[in-house]
């Protein structure tokens, strides 16, 4: 005979879970709070001291980039939060919670709402604190009382609004899909906001009125009180509406959504514990709603050597968004290198963008490295040769993109005419060096090797961190340094043609060396 059931409430269920968990007693919770307060106190005082010493210097250093601060920065934070909610979100449960709590006969709203409420309060008060700090920072805002109060209120409202918007993204798969689709246009909009902020005057006013990211940033001075108040009222109304919708829709999220996110988090945590960056990335990708996928088919090549590029093309056709990202990064990188070849910032930025584009196009090689046995069973070549063949398509794509970028840059007047011949001559070797370095980095997978870990664990002088960083970005640093140096030497050379030939030969020699290392790879 089973005991007679009595209808439990969500509060009872959560209380039962807390009671049964080893860390659930009041004393344990108080201990956790005490430790957290202690840590925040110590770290806070250290950071405050560091800020007093370095703050003015850092603020001075950031002066040229101030136009990004304000509305564009808030817009980018909003975008990042919404992207986060496409695969995780503010109300998350473990897999076991999904199996036992969310399947219990209690209203789901009662289980979800406490998490959403806490997230809203945390982000709201966190936003208020950031607003106060930003308004007090020297040179950013005038530190009068009304300004500080406005910043605090705006931060609070924005935090609540973010949680409300994030929840809608989390609970509605269609909305999440649109967030993913609109990310690239949103980045373009962010660039427009930067330009508008920099222009000042009416353009800056338009940026501030363009959305919640600007409503709280109006200056509240005696002469311009009205826009500030209107902005705050708008922001407050949006946040209030968001809070109401949060309450009303707290129970209307499917168990499927919670389970998918729980699985993702479990995989990501497992990846982090095993120091496997690739596993973390794959877990976050796997959780997203299926985006648009091309159904284009490609004829199988007759020449065996083209099989791997054909497989790479299929991969790109299945995820055209990655191709777009790579095109933007690769074309942009080459354009930056050609447009300002003597400025250190553009040399490093352009080379880095080119490296990232190469890395992004090498996804099929990463898949090969994830399961090296597959290539050994299915393909007739040695493992190293397979990896080398995977580099052909990205090199061809980036070269083509580079030519288009150089031509476009020259037509738009961004690239000077005398740079074009040297840049074209240098294009192939610099692209190949980047692709090979990215391939050498990608072939290792994401997991930190045990021998590196052992070395760092026994390191008495604290250089273990450097060793890990070196392992992670060593190939990238080599390629970026080589390409940046080559472009710089070419740009500063008096005889452009002979200089470009010399530099191209140097890069070719490096490419041959990198290829030899890659072809010698074993699974």
């Amino acid at each position, binding site marked *: 005979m089973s*005991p007679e*059931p*009595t209808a*439990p409430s969500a509060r009872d269920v959560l209380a039962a879970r807390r009671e*049964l968990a080893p860390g659930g007693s009041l004393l344990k919770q108080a201990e956790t709070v005490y430790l957290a307060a202690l840590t925040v106190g110590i770290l806070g005082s250290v950071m405050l001291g560091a800020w007093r010493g370095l703050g003015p210097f850092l603020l001075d250093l950031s002066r040229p980039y101030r136009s990004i601060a304000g509305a564009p920065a808030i817009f980018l934070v909003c975008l990042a939060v919404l992207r986060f909610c496409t695969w995780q979100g503010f109300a998350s449960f473990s897999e*076991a919670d999904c*199996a*036992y709590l969310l399947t219990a006969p209690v209203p789901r709203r009662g289980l979800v709402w406490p998490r959403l409420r806490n997230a809203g309060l945390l982000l709201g008060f966190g936003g208020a604190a950031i607003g106060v700090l930003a308004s007090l920072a020297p040179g950013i805002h005038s530190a009068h009382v009304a300004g500080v109060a406005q910043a605090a209120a705006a931060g609070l409202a924005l935090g609540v609004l973010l949680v409300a918007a994030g929840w809608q993204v989390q609970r509605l798969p269609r909305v999440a899909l649109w967030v993913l689709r609109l990310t690239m246009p949103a980045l373009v909009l962010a660039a427009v906001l930067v330009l508008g902020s920099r222009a000042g005057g009416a353009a800056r006013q338009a940026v501030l009125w363009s959305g919640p990211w600007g409503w709280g940033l109006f200056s509240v001075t005696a002469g311009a009180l009205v826009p500030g108040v209107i902005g705050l009222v708008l922001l407050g109304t949006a946040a209030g509406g968001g809070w109401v919708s949060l309450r009303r829709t707290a129970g*209307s999220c499917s168990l499927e959504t919670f389970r998918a996110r729980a699985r993702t988090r479990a995989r990501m945590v497992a990846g982090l514990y095993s120091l496997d960056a690739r596993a973390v990335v794959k877990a976050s990708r796997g959780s997203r709603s299926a985006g648009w996928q091309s159904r284009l088919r490609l004829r199988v090549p007759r020449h065996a050597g083209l099989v791997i590029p054909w497989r790479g093309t299929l991969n790109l056709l299945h995820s055209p968004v990655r191709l777009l990202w790579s095109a933007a990064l690769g074309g942009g990188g080459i354009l930056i290198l050609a447009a300002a070849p003597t400025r250190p910032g553009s040399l490093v930025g352009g080379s880095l963008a080119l490296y990232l584009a190469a890395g992004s196009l090498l996804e099929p090689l990463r898949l090969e490295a994830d399961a090296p046995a597959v290539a050994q069973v299915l393909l007739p070549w040695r493992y190293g040769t397979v990896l080398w063949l995977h580099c052909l398509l990205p090199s061809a794509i980036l070269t083509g993109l580079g030519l288009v970028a150089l031509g476009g840059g020259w037509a738009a007047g961004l690239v000077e005419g005398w740079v074009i011949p040297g840049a074209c001559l240098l294009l192939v070797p610099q692209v190949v060096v980047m692709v090979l370095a990215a391939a050498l980095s990608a072939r290792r997978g994401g997991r930190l090797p045990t021998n590196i870990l052992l070395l760092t664990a026994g390191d008495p002088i604290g250089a273990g961190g450097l060793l890990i960083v070196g392992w992670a970005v060593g190939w990238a640093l080599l390629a970026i340094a080589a390409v940046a140096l080559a472009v710089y030497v070419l740009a500063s050379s008096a005889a452009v043609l002979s200089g470009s030939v010399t530099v191209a030969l140097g890069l070719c020699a490096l490419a041959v060396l990198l290829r030899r290392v890659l072809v010698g790879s074993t699974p």
Partner: protein
Amino acid sequence: MTGLLRTLALPPECRSDTVLETRGLMRVYGPVVALAALDLQVEGGECVALMGPNGSGKTTAAALICGLLEPTDGVARVCGFSIHQEPHAVTARAHLAYVPDTPALYDDLTVGDHLRLVAAAHGVAGGDLEERCAELLELLGLEERALFLPGQLSRGMRQKTAIACALIRPADRRGARG
């Protein structure tokens, strides 16, 4: 069938004699139709097994019926209550138990605590709860593992723990027939 689906037999608040009913239940993943228009009716006391070749949608059907997946189309009702629509789903969930082939267990709860938690979540309190837990653990050969954490259990024992969690839920057999 990868999971054991247990619909409890005709509880008093059942709106009809039908314990489980699906109408046009469908699930689509992009271009793949995982389950196409499943119509199913299970009366109180009936025992039904879903059988079919690989990829025919058995697991998807079970997950849809239990509310683990959202249907692309169609409806699944348990005792007349839709499992996918709050607040009706609360009543539907009270009469369902699902044991997947890879059960999810709390890392920090012992086998016994799992049973107590599920009992509390289903409103099963009272003096004989501990007796019922002990009875179930003995029935499934878990009595010596009652204080074990999931990490200390074999796969089979974890599965048995999930079965015990399914059985600890209140089952009203007054309406059982057949």
